[in-house]
């Protein structure tokens, strides 16, 4: 028995900011102090509050140390672990109150969250199967194989109200029932871990922090649908997730939890990992299957649907990581556990990857129906530097933006669709008043243009032409007719594209045009970028009234665009200026501004 446990985040974010070195240093330091048998160091998955990483929690006190550095380790060991004195300077500021150390789940970031999919992330050692088993791991699979019929399992999943978390929101139980209804000599379960939306990383975190729950869920799905083989298609850009998943599969096989005759039930299930080579389109289910089959990852027309003819032309159930992550909990605790969370049509919780102009960036899992305002203001801790919320982009490049007037919209499938946005895979990017919506739309569209597989005309050529129109607009060369063409092209691409990637590609443009039309018109008619972002539409000028003629700006200007006589107002040569803004930062008299 250990008297203390030190949990250190081993997710990708904290790993990048040296958590492995912190773990090594901890182990060395503990050994040096002779504490290695009293204190256990555990590398866990992601805690969610990534902006404060590397994160460390010390139990039994539950002290939440944030932004820990390797140099802090000796002090933590010496003070906290040896002498029992909490290192207050490293505590997450909100947990440090006058009287006591506030438990983590009472902090603003965590108190409105409800962790189902992420419940083991940051809690257990993902590379230790016994830790998973200790938190009821593989109990759900055992229950299915020993107490439930496949029909029972599908009913539980259906009754839970779980809908696909990858973007489509299709009812999971119904999806499983389609595959189950088809007779075939071979069926497959596929886990879509080709998470590609910019900013979204919940699937990665689940695989890194709790890989066994995916294995368990896929085996359950296999049992329910009659599949004996599964594939996890995971991006090669997720090395930690891949490594932990592969180890988890190996361990599960060694424990008899995968393979032949699981739990002596006669049910066989085997699992393979396939690495994606980085094409966003491979997150589209038919493209993903085409890729697993060894071909260029391109979508194929539906019908036939995967439930009829999927991977290797066999009936296939495909769900994404987060969807699967909910399954063991639902099976174990019953559908009511899940369908009592959330809204009428969107049950359970949803993980969002909170990013952009927000204080607490990271992963948050909230009950469906939580309002955007709660996420931004309470969980996210508001906008940095006291700036004003302008919009939130949900669903990445397939989604849309939500303007300020919809801040009280509940975050669920149907409410978001109604206002032209979507839950999507759960990317949530917050923008403040320094963001130009035309520029943002251009950014997301550029992403899909680059990622278009090139198979169908509307997506291959249409999105590119759409991007060219946006570039024309942000360059100040747009016309009012361009806006009409842009809108028409958006609807054309939505109506005509072969797969979901193309059909949703215009969403960022359409939704920003819907909610921020005046901003587009300002670019076109007035040749102005109200947010001061589009370089060709802004000018940086020196106010002669305020300029003292100190020459500081002219010395810092990287292109020599500023000239003047000392003690007289300086001027910027607009033909040379690259709008980098260094002069604005340099000026001590607030004389330079961007308009």
């Amino acid at each position, binding site marked *: 028995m250990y008297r203390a446990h030190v949990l250190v985040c081993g997710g990708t974010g904290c790993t990048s900011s040296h958590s492995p070195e912190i773990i090594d240093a901890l182990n060395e330091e503990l050994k040096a102090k002779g504490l290695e048998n009293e204190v256990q160091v555990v590398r866990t998955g992601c805690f969610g509050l990534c902006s404060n990483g590397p994160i460390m929690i010390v139990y039994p006190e539950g002290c939440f140390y944030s932004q820990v550095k390797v140099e802090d380790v000796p002090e933590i060991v010496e003070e906290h672990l040896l002498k029992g004195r909490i290192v207050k300077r490293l505590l997450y500021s909100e947990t440090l109150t006058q009287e006591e150390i506030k438990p983590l789940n009472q902090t603003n970031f965590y108190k409105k969250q409800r962790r189902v999919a992420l419940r083991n992330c940051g809690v257990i050692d993902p590379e230790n199967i016994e830790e998973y088993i200790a938190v009821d791991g593989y109990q759900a699979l055992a229950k299915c194989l020993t107490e439930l019929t496949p029909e029972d399992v599908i009913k539980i999943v259906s009754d839970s109200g779980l809908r696909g978390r990858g973007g489509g929101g299709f009812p999971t139980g119904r999806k499983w029932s389609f595959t189950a209804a088809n007779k075939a000599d071979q069926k497959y379960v596929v886990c879509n871990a080709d998470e590609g939306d910019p900013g979204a990383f919940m699937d990665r975190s689940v695989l890194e922090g709790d890989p066994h729950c995916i294995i368990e869920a896929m085996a359950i799905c296999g049992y329910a649908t009659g599949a004996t083989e599964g594939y996890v298609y995971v991006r090669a850009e997720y090395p930690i997730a891949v490594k932990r998943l592969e180890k988890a599969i190996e361990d599960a096989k060694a424990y008899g939890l995968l393979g032949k005759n699981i739990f002596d039930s006669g049910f066989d299930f085997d699992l393979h990992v396939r690495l994606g080579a980085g*094409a966003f389109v491979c997150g589209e289910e038919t493209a993903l299957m085409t890729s697993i089959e060894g071909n*260029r990852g391109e979508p194929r*027309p539906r*019908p036939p649907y995967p439930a009829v003819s999927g991977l290797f032309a066999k009936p296939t159930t495909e769900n994404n990581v987060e969807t699967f992550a909910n399954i063991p909990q639902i099976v174990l605790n019953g559908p009511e556990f899940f369908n009592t969370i959330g809204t009428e049509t969107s049950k359970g919780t949803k993980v969002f990857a909170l990013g952009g102009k927000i204080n607490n960036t990271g992963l948050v899992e909230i009950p469906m129906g939580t309002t955007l305002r709660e996420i931004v203001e309470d969980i996210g801790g508001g906008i940095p530097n006291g700036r004003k919320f302008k919009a939130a982009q949900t669903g990445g490049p397939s989604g849309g933006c939500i303007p300020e007037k919809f801040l009280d919209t509940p975050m669920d499938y149907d409410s978001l669709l109604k206002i032209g946005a979507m839950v999507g895979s759960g990317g949530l990017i917050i923008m403040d008043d320094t963001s130009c919506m035309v520029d943002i739309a251009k950014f997301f569209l550029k992403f899909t243009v680059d*990622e*278009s597989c*090139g198979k169908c*005309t509307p997506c291959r050529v249409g999105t590119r032409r759409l991007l060219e129109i946006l570039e024309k607009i942000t360059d100040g060369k747009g016309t009012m007719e361009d806006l009409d063409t842009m809108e028409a092209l958006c609807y054309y691409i939505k*109506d005509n*594209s072969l797969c979901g990637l193309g059909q949703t590609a215009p969403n960022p443009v359409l939704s920003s045009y819907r909610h921020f039309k005046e901003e587009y018109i300002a670019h076109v008619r007035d040749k102005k970028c109200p947010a001061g972002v589009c370089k060709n539409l802004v000018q940086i000028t020196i106010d002669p009234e305020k300029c003292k003629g100190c020459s500081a700006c002219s010395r810092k200007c990287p292109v020599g665009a500023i000239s003047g006589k000392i003690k007289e107002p300086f001027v910027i040569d607009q033909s040379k200026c690259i709008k980098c803004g260094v002069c604005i930062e340099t000026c001590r008299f607030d004389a330079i501004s961007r308009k």
Partner: protein
Amino acid sequence: MANVNIKINNREYSVPAGISILEAARLAGVEIPTLCYLKEVNEIGACRICVVEVKGARSLVAACVFPVAEGMEVQTNSPKVIASRKTTLELLLSTHKKECLSCVRSGNCELQKLCKDYGIEDAHRFDGFRPKYEIDASASHMYRDDEKCILCRRCVAVCNKNQAVGVIGANDRGIDTHIASPYEMPLNSTSCVSCGQCITACPTGALSERDDTQKVFDAINDPEKFVVVQTAPATRVGLGEEFGYPMGSIVTGKMVAALRRLGFDKVFDTNFSADLTIMEEATEFLQRFTKKENLPLITSCSPGWIKFCEFYYPEMIPHLSSCKSPMGMFGATAKTYYADKMGIAPEKIFSVAIMPCTAKKFEAERHDHSAIKGIPDIDAVLTTRELARMIKKQGILFNALPDEEYDAPFGLGSGAGTIFGATGGVMEAALRTAYETLTGESLNDENINFTDVRGTQGIKEATYNIAGNEVRVAVASGLANAKKVLDMVKSGEKTYDFIEIMACPGGCVNGGGQPIQPASVRNNVDIRAERAAGLYRDDIGLPVRKSHENPDIKQIYKEFYGEPGSHKAHECLHTGYTVRKKY
């Protein structure tokens, strides 16, 4: 299968369940335009030209791949559909080279036709970034200009599916997507077999045969050259299509007349050398069959097949007949026997072959076994399409030409020679000769037709009892079918004595050098069957229907070759093969 009730453009129809909206519409008398769709070969729903509105569907659907269902209501021509198709065409044009004035496919381009039908007035509406590509002219048989490509992938599908070759595919992505070989290798560095099926599948001018017409015009205009020309069997039932004749029309006489008017010194018939091939190959077969040596014997007339064998089945090379193709045999004979007979120096003879085939261009460049060392058997190969181009360029009114006869002494071909152009034809021609040789009996009008080996099926099998011998034969056309047959032979699953293989599905009538029929025709008419029917009609109408009864053939053996399989024949009419590395 049961029928379903659907509505197309507000009218009710009962159509077979499971068919596509495209097929259902056709049954209802409505043609939905297509670009990427090639029935049973390329059904990928990529180009989006065939989109239609289906009541209740979230977006427009591709009619080519979307199956009908009970109660479905389809609008094929609603304003939304028409506007969408128009935009798709405008977008395709924005990445297209638009050199329509001089494009080889002008007038026979599926994109051009649709643009005209849909009234695309501004071909530059969506002009913007357009990727630039070098024309790949590395191969001896074709050009690829990716700047004219609309990425329908029909070429990729025929190369993969019909031909089991698969040396082209999509490279890069997004707007940079283009069709090329792996690692952007030039086509001649790949294991392309030069069959040209990709060219006839191409809806635009992105793929075309290497144009050798100028080379031939130059030879004709060179007073030092004696220019002879031969015409392959399948050209006589193909060429007419270029001049408005119904598919399968026999235009032999007009073709001969046109060639004379183009200025060729002598016009000969490859049917003659097809008969010569039968003499040699039937002899070779009977020798091997008697000795049970290197069986099955596999035909060697199709240069696409030969290249496929050299690349993919080098272990089967010993099974190949050592006979040159009819084209090669003609070339060799023209520069030896004929040159000598006419007193013309072989190097002054310029020998042109009009072929339904692009691989023949490659074959002509295999100088390794020419009859006279250092002098190619064949100097230029023109496809049926190139011949049509020359005729049009010279203002020859093809349809008004009289029917003329070939020149002697290679102007007479038998019916056995003419059916070389259809799958199973070589086999049938060989069987006619082998039968009479083995049995000593004469085939009559009743039993001369070996119908088991006729027809457009990809693989045909038959067993004949000839003079107490069981002769097991197989016929395959299309290299994917050839692959199946070879794999069965290799695994021991099947045993044959004689196999005919043609690279192109349906044989030479559907060769890569034949007139190009748009998908709208190919999807609804079996062009292989239509053209082959012309050849079988030709066979019936000819006075001589067996190669060994061709008097010119008897004459040439008497005067020059001695007997089939002689030393002289081997020097001129036989060849050898090389193992080729795939990459």
